[in-house]
């Protein structure tokens, strides 16, 4: 007998995780008509081939300058991350306090380049600018991660301590040693991010690699660009060789000596910045009124904040979707269930290069090659973040044990075995990355793409720090908001 009544056939419903991803994909598709994805360069291949030829014959500019820049890049990364670890740890201890939590969220929702632009206004090109630009947002990141790590530590050792044990004693003897390996491995990962951030700070004038990269690139000296990039990759790839338990303190102590001398700090400038520069313009004169403040605010909101926020939103949603697709298609390249060890080598190489190139730098390069539109930004964000998530997902897939009679055909194996098993991890990486992509999208505006960073940069170029700060805060709110949504989605997915 055949069932002909469809009512009896159980309806198939996609799993929740798939539905979440489809929503994101739909949103991205809806954004595409508003996204400017044109290749406006008449002949992108000319510049691209010149860049590739540069890689064939890299050429070092003055070696002494480059070595100085390399050392400065490391110095800012180490000192910045070192300071952030200490501050972040202290903040992590107070993380239960909602005010503290909000404060940390604010610190990390402002991109390090924005922090650098802020500090530049009153410290100028002093090492402190670069140091704090890394330390401040990283402290916020560390606070959250450290608090989570300390929270997940087994509770029993602390519970068995005598009743009146002091808070710090208990921390030092139980939670800290219990959490130590996780704290160390997270710090080490962050250090790698710190090196990337530090390199990027050169774009605003600090004496790190980015400084020379920007110069060489904007002048079209591709062999020099290639040499600098290769050096940067070697630096990141060889981290395991030079970063040891005992070298870390050496680097920290040594770092202040390699940050360049910059210009002297004049503390009066700091006071002026806070007491005048960031006060909204209509409040500065003697004829301040609520009306003028409201006019000022609505003017900025309509002309700058709204278009900036809108562009940031659509661009980051498109970039997020492309990142996901990219990661899902990349991770089999390094999965032991798909390729032999030798076959995985090219995949590993590609992923290492792609994830150690900061998206800001990638976007900068692609903007030169493809011309100004949102396309370079989408590609840059997708390559960097997709490679990172692809790497994490691939690593996760390698921990899976497949049954012996697992499907032979790679595509079957991918669809029926690997994808379903790695998908939850993939989705949480993506949700975590969402906020990062949004923050990066905002900052790419500094390169000329009309996200909110573009308007921040304009305000700074016009010496209107009140406007710049307001826009930076709006960008920060946006990131905090996305972070909240991401966590909610994550919880609904797990729960």
């Amino acid at each position, binding site marked *: 007998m055949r069932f002909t009544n469809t009512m009896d056939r159980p309806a198939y419903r996609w799993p929740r995780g798939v539905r979440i991803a489809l929503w994101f994909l739909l949103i991205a598709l809806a954004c595409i008509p508003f996204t400017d994805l044109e290749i406006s360069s008449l002949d992108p291949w000319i510049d691209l081939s010149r860049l590739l030829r540069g890689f064939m014959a890299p050429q070092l500019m003055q070696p002494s300058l480059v070595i100085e820049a390399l050392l400065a890049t490391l110095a800012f990364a180490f000192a910045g991350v070192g300071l952030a670890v200490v501050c972040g740890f202290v903040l992590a201890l107070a993380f239960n306090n909602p005010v503290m939590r909000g404060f940390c969220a604010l610190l990390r929702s402002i991109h390090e380049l924005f922090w650098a632009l802020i500090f530049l206004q009153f410290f100028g090109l002093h090492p402190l600018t670069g140091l704090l630009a890394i330390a401040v947002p990283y402290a916020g990141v560390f606070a959250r991660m450290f608090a989570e790590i300390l929270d997940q530590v087994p509770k029993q050792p602390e519970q068995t301590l*005598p009743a009146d044990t002091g808070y710090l004693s208990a921390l030092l003897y139980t939670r800290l040693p219990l959490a130590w390996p996780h704290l160390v491995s997270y710090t080490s990962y962050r250090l790698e991010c710190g090196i990337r951030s530090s390199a990027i700070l050169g774009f605003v004038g600090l004496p790190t690699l980015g400084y020379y990269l920007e110069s060489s690139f904007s002048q079209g000296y591709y062999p020099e660009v290639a040499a600098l990039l290769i050096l940067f990759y070697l630096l990141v790839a060889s981290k395991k060789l030079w970063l040891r338990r005992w070298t870390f303190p050496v680097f920290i102590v040594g770092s202040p000596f390699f940050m360049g001398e910059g210009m002297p700090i004049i503390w009066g400038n700091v006071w002026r910045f806070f007491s005048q520069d960031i006060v909204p313009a209509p409040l500065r004169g003697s004829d301040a009124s609520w009306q003028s403040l409201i006019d000022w605010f609505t003017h900025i909101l309509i002309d700058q904040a709204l278009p900036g926020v809108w562009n940031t939103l659509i661009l980051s949603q498109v970039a997020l979707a492309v990142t996901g697709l990219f990661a899902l298609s990349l991770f089999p390249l390094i999965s032991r269930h798909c390729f032999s060890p030798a076959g995985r080598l090219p995949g590993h190489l590609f992923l290492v290069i792609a994830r150690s190139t900061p998206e800001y730098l990638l976007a900068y390069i692609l903007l030169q090659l493809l011309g100004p539109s949102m396309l370079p930004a989408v590609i840059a964000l997708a390559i960097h973040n997709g490679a990172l998530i692809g790497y994490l997902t691939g690593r996760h897939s390698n921990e899976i044990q497949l049954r012996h009679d697992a499907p032979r055909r790679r595509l079957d194996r991918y669809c029926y075995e690997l994808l379903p098993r790695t998908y939850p991890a993939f989705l949480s990486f993506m949700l975590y990355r969402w906020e990062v992509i949004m923050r990066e999208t905002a900052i790419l505006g500094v390169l000329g793409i009309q996200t909110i960073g573009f308007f921040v940069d304009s305000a700074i170029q016009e010496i209107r720090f009140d406007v710049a700060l307001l826009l930076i805060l709006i960008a920060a709110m946006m990131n905090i908001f996305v972070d909240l949504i991401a966590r909610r989605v994550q919880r609904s997915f797990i729960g």
Partner: protein
Amino acid sequence: MSALAIHSGPLGYDGQTVLQPVSLDIQAGEQLILLGKSGCGKSTLLNHIYTENRKECALIPQGLGLVDRLSVFHNIYMGRLSHYGLLHNLRNLVMPAAARVDEILPLLERLGLSDKCFATVADLSGGQRQRVAVARALYQGASVLLADEPVSALDGPEADRVMSLLNQHFNTAVITLHDVERALRYGQRIIAIQHGEVVLDEPAKRLSVNTLNAFY
């Protein structure tokens, strides 16, 4: 005089009751043994007693509560963290104070761990770890011992040595065990728990191995 008075409501976690309300008076000098199948609520009761009376109690939880990355010395020293100021604790963490080492070495000797003073806990065997937790309780100097299966990982003679050490050291104790003979040997009062309820509360001398085996 009663050392601990326990009057609990229903106990449990995640909204599930594991143990019905319990009323107990434990006299000073009384060695009380809790018996029952695993999952019957012994540990729940022990933990309840501990949270209500932290000040007087030293605890040996089932999971031992050791910090794996620290040395045996430091784990034992933790029993007296509250005795000393932060600075002393800090200094002792970085560079163990000779006076503290001298206090702890005899304990280690009695527990057969004298060669392990500065060994990392992570490198020890299960039985050695259990003895470290015992040493921590001994070092703490509290008046009451609360111990959850303190000798489960030790062999017979070793287990007896540790039990009598605990017996001498703490004159008031609440200890969970699953070995009935050992319970009769070291307990003055025995409480059995079954299906989340106290079903027996008698002095040890009135009980025999056979009566107690009924609860397993």
